[in-house]
């Protein structure tokens, strides 16, 4: 989580297109929530928010966003005893990721306005563009590693 937070803050956040950069943390929280459960997802969301906030300077706001992401992704948890197929797991993971991303970008757009853009511009811009960019990474991450982890 620490490594991912560093990668997100120092590398991924620099890939800015139209004031928006992809976000890896919701994907990580979504994976934890889907694989382990809502409570763990919540805890990881809160912790990852604290780390990101420690680096960016907005500890409270990032912690709250992480908590919300952990909470919403928890509804897509796939219990171990459910014997779900990999397709169902994948679908749940994608849905959890998309929900976490939309929640995260929406909250961030509401709570901070570093570029002084009007809300009707920064909200759809960050949600649509940020979610699309992050979902591409999500698909790639699923196919090159998370798929195997979710199956186990």
């Amino acid at each position, binding site marked *: 989580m620490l490594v991912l937070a560093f990668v997100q*803050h120092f590398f991924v956040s620099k890939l800015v297109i139209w004031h928006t950069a992809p976000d890896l943390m919701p994907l990580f929280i979504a994976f934890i929530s889907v694989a382990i459960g809502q409570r763990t997802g919540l805890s990881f969301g809160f912790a990852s928010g604290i780390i990101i906030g420690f*680096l960016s*300077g907005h500890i409270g706001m990032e*912690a709250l966003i992480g908590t919300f992401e952990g*909470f919403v992704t928890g509804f897509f948890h796939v219990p171990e005893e459910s014997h779900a197929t990999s397709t169902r797991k994948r679908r749940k993971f994608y849905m959890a990721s998309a929900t976490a991303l939309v929640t995260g970008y929406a909250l961030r757009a509401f709570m901070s306005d570093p570029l002084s853009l009007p809300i009707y511009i920064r909200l759809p811009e960050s949600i649509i563009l940020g979610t699309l960019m992050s979902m591409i990474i999500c698909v790639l991450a699923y196919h090159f590693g998370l798929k195997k982890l979710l199956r186990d």
Partner: protein
Amino acid sequence: MTSFFRFIAKHTAYLYFLLYCSLSIAIMQLERKETLDMIRERGLAINAAVAEQLSGLWSLFTLKQNNERLFLQNARLMSKLLQQGVALRDIEDKQSLVENRADEMSRFTIARVVDRRFSATDNMLIIDAGKNNGITKNMSVMTPDGLVGRIIEVSDNYAKVLPIINRNLKVSVVTDSTRTNGLLSWSNGNERIAHIEHVPVSGTLLVGEGVSTSDYSTFACRGIPVGTIERISKDKLFYNVDIRLGVDFSSLNQVMVCPAKPSQEKLKLMQSHDSPEKQE
């Protein structure tokens, strides 16, 4: 009571959510306080340190591009510097020429051509200014159009001038734009055409280019106009250059005698023996 605990156990996620939300909001509120400010500052310091290291690492990858960019910038600045240096030198040259002229203009002696010996090869002029007017041997004679000749003999009230249209007078000259040196001479009967000798074919000359006296002259101060290049032809080693003289000798009446003379120290040094003395 049991059902309450069962409800709590069933919905612990909501409790966690509320707890974390409260904590986050509390942190947001406390962010203005000193303790959290300190933590935030520490975080930003770590952030800055890591970012600095990463940018240093990134600069390694862009080192080649930066190097090339700096090299080009250096070349641009160098060419600008050279251009400005040349321009500055030209300005200084012109300024010194103007200053010399302004200084010496007041000391020019105006004289009238009172006699002339016509010849196809050895022309001679007499002017009505002599020792009493401050005229001495080896002064240069000119008009606003260009160089006339050299004073070779002086009496109390008159002076004899060896004009450039005399085969015995040779003047060191330089072209105005290409700065090619040569020796002006006159040999035939045409009063308006002279030649420049000893210009190697490696030199550069332009038709229409102005020619003036050079620093090498033993009597004329530098920069006195002489004429313009009219024709250039190549020989084996040297150019054959014809120049149209600035002064029209057929209608020459008034002349100016220039008091400035080349440094005697320079001439003395030039006339000394070239070979070093033998030392035991």
